[in-house]
């Protein structure tokens, strides 16, 4: 609502508003006139949109707050009595269902009394993302931090040591699964993608280049759902008799292969954007290929591609929801399973809204971070 925001937006446009005499720039009335009612067409659009928004907001608040059922009584047998929700169906939201089911949605079939462990894992993941986002930590040590945190997460999830009870992998579920699939997808796909990107740019190794191109184009040409499908029904046939990686691991492999192809293209973009002079100077100094790559080109290229890298990661984070089609209990699947409970029949919009909010919270944070990094990099480049 503040004037600076409006200027920032207006600046984006081809016709800047800054050149107006300063007197009309300040003051709320001038601002409103300039930004909402500057012309007949603009006025009509503002009014129509304004009415539509107000109407939608009114409807939503009436449904989601005023008429909503926040909790339901418990019957004598200890079961919940959803009559109030059923009665309110269509006119008010049934948040009581979320109240009852939120732990199943977040943690799936993880043993109920052990769910604090999965909760800590979520916190650890968030902490890991936070640390990784800080430029002060962009050093070699970050890799160790990642390795250590992921090890702790797996210890917590699996248990079996330090007095933690063992939780088999098929009982994991909910948000930790989503985070594991996405984070491991990134962590393991990243080295692979760098190799593929280097291979694809290689001029000295045409056979390797061809292999890399075939790999990237093949994977990018098919939907993730087809890869998951393959991991689900075909992968077991590829393996020797007796060796049967479980479903989560197979899905993880599919996501890694998928992510590596997309990341490779991002990394390749960074390598391409680097001025040729860098590589030529390194050659002139007599550096070997790996010295040149690891010390000169790659570090610069990776810095350039951090924003698209984050965007690609946001993509995976959302795409992990596709494991719904092969029956892995991630955040979305767990929530859908919660919906199947006969007690909460018909409560779907509420659950979808909550799940969407979780996704938005993660993705929006990451994408605003990506934009801020982009601005910083732009500033550094234009200095």
């Amino acid at each position, binding site marked *: 609502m503040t004037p600076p925001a409006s200027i920032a937006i207006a600046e984006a446009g081809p016709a800047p508003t800054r050149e107006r005499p300063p007197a009309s720039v300040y003051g709320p009335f001038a601002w409103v006139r300039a930004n909402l009612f500057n012309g007949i067409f603009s006025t009509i659009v503002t009014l129509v949109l304004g009415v539509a928004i107000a109407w939608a907001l009114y409807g939503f608040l009436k449904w989601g707050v005023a008429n909503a059922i926040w909790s339901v009584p418990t019957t004598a047998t200890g079961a919940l009595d*959803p009559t109030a929700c*059923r009665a309110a169906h269509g006119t008010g939201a049934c948040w009581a269902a979320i109240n009852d089911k939120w732990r*199943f949605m977040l943690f*799936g*079939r*993880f*043993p*109920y009394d052990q769910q604090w462990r999965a909760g800590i894992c979520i916190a650890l993941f968030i902490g890991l993302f936070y640390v990784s986002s800080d430029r002060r930590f962009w050093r070699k040590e970050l890799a160790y931090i990642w390795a250590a945190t992921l090890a702790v997460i797996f210890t917590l999830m699996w248990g079996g040591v330090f007095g933690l009870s063992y939780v*088999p992998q*098929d*009982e994991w*579920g909910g948000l930790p699964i989503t985070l594991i699939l996405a984070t491991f997808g990134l962590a393991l796909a990243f080295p692979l993608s760098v190799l593929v990107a280097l291979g694809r740019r290689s001029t000295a190794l045409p056979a390797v280049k061809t292999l890399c191109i075939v790999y990237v184009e093949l994977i990018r040409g098919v939907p993730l759902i087809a890869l998951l*499908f393959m991991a*689900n*029904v*075909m992968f*077991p*046939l590829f*393996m*020797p*008799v*007796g060796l*049967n990686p*479980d*479903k989560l691991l197979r899905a993880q492999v599919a996501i890694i292969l998928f992510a590596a192809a997309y990341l490779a293209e991002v990394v390749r973009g960074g390598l391409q954007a680097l001025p040729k002079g860098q590589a030529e100077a390194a050659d002139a100094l007599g550096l070997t290929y790996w010295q040149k790559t690891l010390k000169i080109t790659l570090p610069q290229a990776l810095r350039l591609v951090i924003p698209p890298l984050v965007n690609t990661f946001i993509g995976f984070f959302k795409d992990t929801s596709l494991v*719904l*089609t*092969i*029956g892995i*209990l991630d955040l979305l699947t767990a929530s*859908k*399973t919660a*919906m*199947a409970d*006969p007690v909460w*029949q*018909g409560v*779907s919009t509420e659950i979808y809204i909550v799940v969407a909010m979780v996704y938005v919270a993660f993705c929006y944070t990451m994408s605003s971070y990506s934009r801020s990094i982009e601005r910083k990099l732009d500033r550094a480049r234009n200095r």
Partner: protein
Amino acid sequence: MFRLTVGAGLLASALLAALPAMAQPSGSATLDAVKARGTLICGVAGAVPGFSLPDSQGIMRGIDADSCRNVAAAVLGDANKVKFAVTTTQNRFTALQSGEIDLLVRSTTWTLGREASLGLEFAGVNYYDGTGFLVKKALGVKSAKEMDGATICVQPGTSTELAISDYYRVNKMKFTPILIQDLAEIQAAFLAGRCDAYSTDSSALATFRATQTNKDDFLLLPEIISKEPLGYVVRKGDDKWFDIVRWSYFATVAAEEMDVSSKNVDEMLASTNPDIRRLLGVEGEMGKSLGLDAKWAYNIIKQVGNFGETWDRNITVLGVPRGINAVWTKGGLHYAPPIR
């Protein structure tokens, strides 16, 4: 020349090193694997009330889940040593074929095609079922024959899908299918009125109807248009495992026939009835001949219960009558061959 030799040599050595070990499984590879692992991996649907559905604590409940527990109790002596693998209609057979699961109990219909061409075998039937139609009473339909032109919700990739197609062709009627993979999604579609009828195994329809608060608004049409014996599926070629699974089921039926239940099984150990003594491993070497502990059937009955108990716990509570699923002594189809 040298270059070629080097290249070929490197390639060949790489290939040799990587060639798969062509180890053949022994006759009871599955049993060995289960014992070595200490858990039975059992494929279930994981979303069907009465058959397999995790409760609020995440524990799998249902007749399919208990069927898995029977086998675990027989083989490992502990009904809780089961890992439930949630399978979809799409990957259930490949999961079993590939050895990812040891056993599949997922309301899967026994058909010739599945046994002959998928490399699978049906070891027993834990539910005699048939395809039915569930409609809303408000539709005013009393028979499936009146359903010409109807829209029908059905899960793709099931035998129901083929059965309906056949039924409508035979009766020269037309229908519009709504085919959704996800069970919850297709039930939601039916409740929302996207389709006029919901068709699947009548057991599932009955449990579905029973779990609705307004169950009297729904009507199960009298026609059962196909036979759907649902059962335990194992891989072909492991006869010993096949026997174990099959007799784990027979043991529960035999126990119900002889009124041995989880409550009285300890007293029954002292029974003088030779059939009961053989069943509970007091007498004879039935367990050993299967490659199991002598207490195999005792463990099943003690920990999971006989067939009737399993049924009552999972299906009767949903208000579904026993019908042809009673033991033969009560006019049903469940019949255990003699244990001797």
